[in-house]
């Protein structure tokens, strides 16, 4: 089957990462009292972004290889 699951996985987590990072930058710092004063949206958003980017890189690489051969 010619369907690479890494592509949608990469897309969704990149998207979630961007959303959380954006929200983390813009949101009122008061909401982070809950998360012990840490801006977890920003921190975890970056983690998701990295995960998503890695998945996307793998997916696009595999696609590039298939295209050539």
């Amino acid at each position, binding site marked *: *089957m010619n*369907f690479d*699951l890494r592509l*949608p*996985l990469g*897309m*969704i*987590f990149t*998207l*979630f990462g961007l*959303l*959380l990072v954006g*929200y*983390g930058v813009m*949101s009122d710092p008061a*909401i*982070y009292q*809950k*998360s*012990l004063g*840490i801006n*977890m*949206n920003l921190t*975890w*958003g970056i*983690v*998701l972004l990295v*995960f998503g980017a890695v998945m996307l890189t793998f997916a696009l690489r595999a696609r590039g290889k298939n295209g050539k051969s």
Partner: protein
Amino acid sequence: MPHSLTLSGIDYAILIIYFGFVLGIGWALKRYMKGGAEFFLSGRSIPAWVTGLAFISANLGAQEVIGMAASGAKYGIMTSHFYWVGAIPAMVFLAIFMMPFYYGSKARSVPEYLKLRFDEKTRGLNAISFAVMTVFSSGISLHALARLMEQLIGWNYNACIFVSAAIVLVYILLGGLTSAIYNEVLQFFMIVLGFAPLVFLALKDVGGWAALKEKLIPVATGQHFAPGTWTDSWSHMQTTAANPMGVEWFGMVFGLGFVMSFGYWCTDFLVVQRAMAANSMSAARRTPLIAAIPKMLFPALVILPGMIAIAMHYQSGGNFLPKGADGSPDYNMVMPTLLARYMPAGLLGLGFTALMASFMSGMAGNVTAFNTVSTYDIYQSYLAPNKTDAHYLTVGRVLTVLGIVISIGCAYLAAQFNNIMDMLQLVFGFVNAPLFATFLLGMFWKRATGHGAFWGLLGGTLGAAIFHGLALATGNTPGIKGGWIEAKFAFHSDMGQNFYMAVVAWTTCFVLTIVISLATARTKTDAELTGLVYSLTPKPETAHEPWYKQPVTVGILVMIVTIVLNILFW
């Protein structure tokens, strides 16, 4: 009652994007669904890492996430036995010894393997009980989801039921088993990435592992157990009175580990179906092993939060978790309480979506197993054999709709009559308990016959029912909890009673199958059993593969790590 969770715009955005992707994956797979093989079996075309993650995810329904966190609070780290004694050894056994027969026999389902190995009646018994069980489980999952959402956010119960059922229906109709498997992998990453920050924050708040150990001492002594009971997994298992589970090591190792866990992980089509969709024998055998690696670490994700919550609950003088009617903490609220306590808007959406996803994939897993078994093992075998593939594909789609409709019915039944559900789960327990004996004898003893297997299974089920009628746990009244014949055997807990019931059912089935097989003539020749029985099947050749693709090597490594984990938390 005030609703304990408030979602903001960003949380809803995450939720909507997630379900958009879920439906999108179904849509993208639509063009590959050309026939029955693609719809029911994924055309045996899926890479091992995907089937492996789907393998654990299919089991990672809400019962697992909510239930294991509840057990972590109620019993402490002993809950890890479900993983480090139960699931992992069973998964390694499935990969090394059993997968070659499931995958190599070309059976399309677990009941079909029973047909090839034994006879029609053994398949029929397994197929029908399994089909009934899956739709009921899917209904219970649906009911639990809707009730929790109603309680937490104030969503409408009926709307929750119909919207969730509709989403599951659409993506299965579009993409069949492949769609369910791909969405399970997506759900796996959602759960891991959604709950990891929660565990991190809760652990940081409690002061780290050492401080948690310290704070769990009053939890144990307050309930009259030794100080380390909540943080030592094996040290308090000499007697049933020494630990909150009410189980000693024999019931644990033999009942939970050998009988129940091997029975579930090695014979339940819901999980085995994932491995059977793999793209090669090698990938099928690696599926449970790839699953075992994250599974080993799951206690940190699902049990640890429960332990943290109960420590906080005691520390705060009983104000952390909501209380049930009798004043004891409501253990099922561990995960929702922690979500509300630590997750700011944004992350909350991620964790909440992960929770919803686990309910829905639990339902989808049941529905895909149901449509395969009811189409191939019931409809094709008994009602309408020798039709075209296109015909069975249509029937499979109709049965998918039917399965979901029955699930909805069961959800409402569960909402109305709690007792009916308890009763059904009890009966399923009787039916499932002996199964592993039948498979073990079927795969490793060529002399086992169809009559032996069939009557052995029935006998084991009956044995379980009779034992249930004779056993009763402390604090229960005779009736649905046991002792309805005469309470002869006393147990410290429901769990202990269940483990021993499994042992009795397994042993009855094992002995009966051997005795009846020896008394009846073989109906299958050695040639017919090639590929189905260990001694008659050539061993899969793996020498040319690199070490990390060899099931035996990886299996041994997984077992070593599991033993180390047991010792670390002894």
